[in-house]
């Protein structure tokens, strides 16, 4: 048997409308409450950050005053640091020729002496004489040894000649290892 709708159409519309109003009311209350809470939180955060900022600004001013009172010390340390760091760089980068000569003198065979030596922009040019070819070989071996490599690299003999007395004259070029 089919259902008999006993409610009139107007009453049903009224009921639907009441449900809609009720739902909208609930949503509006919820939105209003959330808005209130969010507003409260935002305002609390705002006042908290504002007061924190004010305190920090006061701290910056206090620190500035303290730094200002220590200005003479700051000037001294800045000047000393500037000069000392530059001086240190210079000291560590300059070539110690006395040290080089002292150390390579231990590597040079007794039958060899230099007639000319030029050190220009890291390049070394040596003109030397040797009593025998063995002495020349000894010198080259010394320069190429691990000890010699501390001072010179890219060693090459540019010319080598001997005279009727068996004396050898030769030129060596090399690159000076930058001693730090």
């Amino acid at each position, binding site marked *: 048997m089919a259902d008999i709708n006993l409610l009139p159409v107007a009453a049903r519309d*009224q009921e639907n*409308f*009441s449900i809609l*109003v009720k739902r*909208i*009311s609930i*949503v*509006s*209350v919820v*939105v*209003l409450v959330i*808005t209130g809470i*969010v*507003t409260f939180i*935002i*305002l609390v955060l*705002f006042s908290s*950050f*504002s007061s924190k*900022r004010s305190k*920090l*600004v006061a*701290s*910056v001013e206090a*620190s*500035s005053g*303290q*730094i*200002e009172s*220590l200005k003479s*010390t*700051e*000037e*001294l*340390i*800045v*000047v*000393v*640091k500037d*000069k*000392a760091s*530059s*001086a*240190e*760089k*210079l*000291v560590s980068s*300059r*070539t110690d*020729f*006395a040290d080089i*000569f002292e150390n390579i003198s231990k590597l040079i065979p007794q039958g060899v*002496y230099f*007639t000319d030596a*030029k*050190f220009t*922009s*890291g390049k070394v040019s040596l003109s030397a004489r040797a009593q025998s070819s063995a002495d020349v070989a000894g010198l080259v071996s010394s320069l190429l040894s691990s000890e010699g490599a501390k001072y010179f690299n890219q060693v090459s003999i540019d010319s080598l000649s001997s005279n009727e007395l068996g004396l050898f004259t030769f030129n060596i070029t090399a690159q*000076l290892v*930058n001693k730090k």
Partner: protein
Amino acid sequence: MQLPALSVLKIQNSLIFEKVTNLAVPVGSLAVSMLILLLIVWPKFTEVLRLKTATAELTTRVQSMDSKVNVLRNLDQIELEEQLASSEQMLPSDKGVFTFIEQIESAAANSGVLLNRLEVSPGSLSGTVENKPQPAPTASSPESKGADLINTKVQLKASISGDYNSFMQFLKILRSMPRIVAVEDLSIGSSLSTSGSSQIRVSLQIEAYWKPMITQLSNIEAPVTELTESEKNLLAKIKTEIANIPSGPPVAPAPSVPLGRPDLFAPF
């Protein structure tokens, strides 16, 4: 049943009015919420975000300034003044050309080499940095020495002669001088003296560095860099060396000479 038309219309109107009033309160409260969110919450929220960033920035500034204050408080003013004196000896604030020449002459005299020739182009004596073209970087030159010192050096070309040991002594004296000097180009030739002993003739370029003093401090919030241990050691070494010099460090920029000459063109 037949109702009068006017009554039905009235009932319908009152129903519509009731519906509108029923909806007005929730819709109105929704609108008010939206207005609060748009006009108060959103602007304040962006302001809070801005304040948060500003606060973080300020916190960093305060921390760096506090640490700077602590560093400055822990520094010993007297020690700094001594270190300044040492650093000034190593890298004078002006060229100090004549002091430099005097030091080279003194080094030559003390080592026993004969100083044959000195050549120097002091340039401007006002102590300003000249804009010379930068030389190409090489193994032993300036690139490693810091670009800030390329134009702040005095170059002196010297010719000396003497025996090998005296020359070695000369090099050692140059290296141990309080002022930082570097031997750059070196040319050595050997020859026999009249007495038959071995002599060498040396041409060399000696560079002495200088650095103008900083005249302006950077930003008040800029951090202060303390001296490293190696820098402290270097300054202490120079201080000891200065103390060991019997006459003390050179103070006058040029040696004192008797003054007054009545005839300006009379030969010596």
